[in-house]
């Protein structure tokens, strides 16, 4: 009896709640869905779309109600205070390791699985670029805890370094790679220095500012960067000096290996190239994490004052984090330039930085595997949406919000210890 009473009361509760939801839906739907303006003969004219608005409100009501009921039924408590600390690993280490191995295997086999499917391989290449960028930014944001909204600047530095060196001085991909990395790292330190005293959001806006400054300089310093025209016909990377071409002067990859050239080969080659770079990055970052410098990064994130009291030079630690992250972005930039063959400032805008940051956070800060998944989601989603392009960025935005709400700690919020008690010492 009382039970039914209960049900009744919270049923009405749910209805009231759903009504409230639909009221809000009405308020925000009215100006966007309900009314719109079209260019008329003289000035704008207002058009109404009541049916859409009504549908919208109805769906809001129904959706809210159903959702509430479901949550009520399955006793899903709304988690208000999501824990600051990453939730204890979603899965145990073993499973993660296997998953990682699985991803690598999938990545290696992908060109075979989709043989001749240029588009898939190319999209996978894009994913890997973002994975690499994500891992780089992870050092700065995930490990050292420095919020960087201008990361794309270093990506640009790398790309333009290769673009300029190759077009002006005939540098090859492999020669340019270290130069670009070093230069980006240098920028990382230069830009990092003024931000050392800043925390949190002050750091955020300053790094954002740096990103914009770099972009504006690229746009306006026409003599060097070609301004908005960018740099075109940047050479593609070679396979140990063998060009990937139908028939270049001298030996080509195809001719040497006695196979006939197909444009697909280059795409696959580029894919394996970035895969290699990404795996190297992963190894490097993993290794650094286990080194004193890596632990210092995390320590600074956790408590700067304690670091000072332990005699750790916080300045150096932060700068090393900036430099490392920047260097990796520089490498990614070189590859980007080589793959596109054309670079212009449009590719290095703030939304790019935001996307990379989103990848790191959605992935679960500090988790390499998480970055892989997040990058896949954020790159593949818009691609899948290409055919109904209008709605794809819409979905993209929603995805970011939903993932954050469902998993505030990121897809994989699981921290691996950097050092363990040696087994013989255990007892």
């Amino acid at each position, binding site marked *: 009896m009382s039970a039914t009473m209960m049900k009744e009361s919270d049923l009405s509760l749910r209805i009231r709640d759903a009504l409230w939801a639909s009221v809000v839906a009405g308020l925000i739907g009215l100006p966007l869905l309900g009314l719109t303006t079209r260019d008329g003969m003289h000035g704008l004219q207002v058009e109404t779309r009541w049916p859409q608005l009504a549908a919208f409100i109805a769906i809001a009501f129904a959706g809210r109600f159903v959702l509430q009921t479901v949550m009520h039924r399955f006793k899903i408590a709304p988690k208000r205070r999501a824990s600051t600390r990453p939730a204890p690993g979603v899965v145990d280490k073993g499973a993660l390791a296997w998953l990682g191995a699985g991803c690598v295997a999938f990545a290696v086999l992908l060109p075979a699985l989709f043989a001749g499917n240029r588009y898939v391989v190319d999209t996978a290449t894009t994913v890997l670029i973002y994975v690499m960028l994500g891992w780089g930014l992870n050092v700065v944001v995930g490990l050292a805890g420095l919020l960087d909204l201008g990361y794309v600047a270093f990506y640009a530095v790398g790309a333009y370094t290769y673009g300029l060196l190759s077009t002006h001085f005939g540098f090859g991909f492999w020669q340019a790679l270290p130069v670009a990395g070093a230069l980006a790292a240098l920028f990382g330190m230069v830009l990092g220095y003024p931000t050392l005293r800043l925390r949190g959001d002050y750091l955020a806006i300053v790094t954002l500012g740096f990103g914009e400054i770099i972009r504006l300089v690229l746009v306006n310093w026409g003599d060097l960067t070609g301004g908005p025209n960018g740099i075109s016909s940047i050479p593609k990377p070679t396979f140990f000096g063998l060009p990937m071409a139908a028939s270049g002067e001298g030996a080509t990859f195809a001719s040497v290996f006695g196979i006939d050239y197909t444009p697909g080969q280059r795409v696959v080659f580029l894919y394996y190239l970035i895969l290699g770079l990404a795996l190297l990055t992963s190894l490097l970052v993993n290794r650094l994490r286990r080194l004193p410098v890596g632990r210092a990064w995390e320590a600074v994130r956790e408590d700067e004052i304690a670091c000072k009291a332990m005699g750790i030079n916080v300045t150096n630690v932060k700068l090393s984090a900036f430099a490392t992250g920047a260097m990796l972005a520089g490498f990614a930039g070189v590859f980007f330039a080589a793959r596109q063959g054309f670079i212009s400032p449009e590719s290095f805008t703030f939304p790019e930085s935001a996307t990379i940051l989103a990848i790191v956070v959605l992935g679960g800060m500090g988790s390499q595997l998480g970055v892989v998944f997040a990058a896949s989601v954020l790159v593949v989603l818009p691609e899948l949406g290409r055919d109904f392009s209008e709605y794809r960025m819409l979905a993209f935005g*929603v*995805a970011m919000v939903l993932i954050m709400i469902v*998993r505030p700690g990121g*897809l994989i919020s699981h921290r691996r210890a950097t050092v363990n008690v040696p087994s013989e010492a255990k007892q």
Partner: protein
Amino acid sequence: MINEAPQETIEASTDRFRIESEHLEMGMNGLKHSMNVVAGIGLGGLALTWSVAACANLVVGVAGPMTGEYASGGEQFRKGAEQAVKDINAAGGLLGQKVDLVVGDDVCDPKQAVSVANSFVNKKVAFVDGHWCSSSTLPASDVYNDAQIPQVTVSTNPKITERGIQGIFRITGRDDQQGQVAGDYIAENFKGKKIAVVDEKTAYGGGLADEIAKELSAKQTPVVLRQSITAGEKDYSGLVSKLKANGVEVLAYGGYYQEVALILRQAAQAGLKLALIGGDTLTNNELVNAAGPEINKVIFTFPPDPRKNAAAAKVVEALRAQKIEPEGYMLYSYAAMQVFADAAKRANSTDYAAVVKQLHNASFSTVVGPVDFDAKGDLKSPGYVVYRWKGNNYEYVNK
């Protein structure tokens, strides 16, 4: 329970969206789902390969900014292509095959342009109509060249045809050519007036303004102010008061219409009387409302208005019947398709080499008049004409 309501409101926005939201959920619940997402690349790919396998028809692509800042330009471009394909199919298709049109949205972003290009290659398109922005055409054309797909673009940046790519053609003039025309016009019609040359820093605008400036100096016409601004701003009061301080009467502008509208309005507000001369993008009728009464001060260069061609009459009629005004590049997009279809017919195949050979040698009659490509792929006789906006439509300026 706190957070969900507005998600629903978001979901409500479209049923298509819900299709996607399935994909989103993948991301949500941790690993195995995320695994699916990785596989998602695969699924996406498979879906595409199937779609290719499914249609035995001849596939052609049209690419441009269907969303984003320049969406309206892309829309014109797409409508033109759609109409062309419709008409071709109505006439029994091409080489006995029905023609399917696939649309690629590059948002005028070089990275996405490459992605679109690759998806076209994947869908085995026989021909690409586009891209629209120079900054998209440049990187994409490498991919098409790689995959041996002929391409006809309306991008006006000279560089595009200067890179020795065989299969790329341009059915409009180039910035340097229209820059010349605009420059001449200014030199002749605004003798002794104070002239400023301003551009927004885009591949299109910068190039155009430089050409105008070059032509003016060639004609010994002094320029009191050469200036660049950043596109996408809203406040150009700085520029305006600079123009005012220099007593500028004629503003030659290289850039898109959004900025033109703002500059004119803010100039008017500051009580500055200006004549503004710009390039082909000022055909966009968004400018009419955006610039308000100032519109009548806008002069621009554009190829001869194809709507006035007898050859175009039928198409124009057909489009107007669908409440579509064939303005801007719509008919050029249509013509690009015509050219390809024609070349394919003559070559009696859609094979790259054959089609390109035809495109280089043969001459075609299209809705934009006779079309002849030179060795580089540019028009042999690119006519640029000067127009002036009058209220809601533009007309030739009689010199």
